[in-house]
């Protein structure tokens, strides 16, 4: 599988995303001004950082970039798209995922290792680092997400770092090929940094193609 990793002005996690994707397949950078993902790119990571300075609202400007149009087209075709942190915010702003990410409940930037539970209850140890990660959506949308198994990851009980509704850390689109989450799987792919659980999340997207 060939991964494209988007780079906006202000992105800062694209290197780790490339490293993570490179462990599973081939990975290349896609510049935000590129209206096409380039030959052979099967899936995309929208990485973390502060795209376009996060001016106005996190992700609000990035969603209008030419590369995001290409990402929307890939997503519509069923291609795997993974939005991490700022990338999750971009996907929500772009309407590819429901809901929004708001300022953390206690206004503090959080950076620590947390345990996530996937829909089957398996636990993953992944770091978070964000100031605007409080997932919010109207109650009827949250109900629908839960009913259809679209809550991909929750913070383990007692570990919700930002006040997210129903402890939600990550959600998927209706067809399951677009996934966004606040925690950073790309920082958890090497025993050196304490966990390799992040690779499970990249593999989940790989399976979209299978």
């Amino acid at each position, binding site marked *: 599988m060939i991964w494209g990793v988007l780079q906006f002005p202000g992105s800062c996690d694209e290197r780790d995303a490339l490293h993570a994707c490179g462990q599973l397949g081939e990975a290349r950078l896609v510049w935000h001004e590129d209206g096409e993902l380039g030959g052979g790119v099967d899936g995309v990571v929208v990485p973390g950082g502060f795209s376009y300075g996060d001016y106005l*609202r996190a992700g*609000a400007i990035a969603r209008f970039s030419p590369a995001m149009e290409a990402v929307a087209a890939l997503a519509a075709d069923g291609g795997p798209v993974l939005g991490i942190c700022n990338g999750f915010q971009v996907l929500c702003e772009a309407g590819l995922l429901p809901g*929004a990410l*708001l300022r953390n409940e*206690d*206004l503090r930037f959080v950076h620590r290792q947390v345990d996530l539970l996937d829909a089957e209850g398996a636990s993953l140890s992944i770091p978070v680092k964000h100031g605007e990660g*409080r997932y919010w959506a109207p109650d009827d949308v949250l109900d629908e997400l839960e009913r259809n198994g679209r809550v991909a990851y929750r913070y383990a009980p007692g570990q919700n770092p930002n006040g997210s509704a129903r402890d939600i850390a990550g959600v998927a689109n209706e067809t399951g090929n677009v996934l966004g989450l606040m925690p950073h799987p790309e920082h958890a792919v090497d025993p050196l940094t304490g966990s390799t659980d992040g690779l499970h999340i990249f593999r989940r997207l790989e399976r979209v193609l299978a």
Partner: protein
Amino acid sequence: MPRARVLIRPKEGILDPQGKAVERALPALGFDGVEHVRVGRMVELEAEDPERLTELCEKLLANPLIEDFEIESL
């Protein structure tokens, strides 16, 4: 060119931690009896076609899922 001011605020019912922080700071400064503080954003602009401001707000200046906006002609 016609000038306008856009006021953007978090929707009712959505926790506004910035507003809460301001509210909690006020009594220490002797400002008692202040409640329901909400912190939003204000954008001033000049637009050739003010008719399109609503669309502009919906698409960029505000996120209609979480924010309300008001357009005021100046």
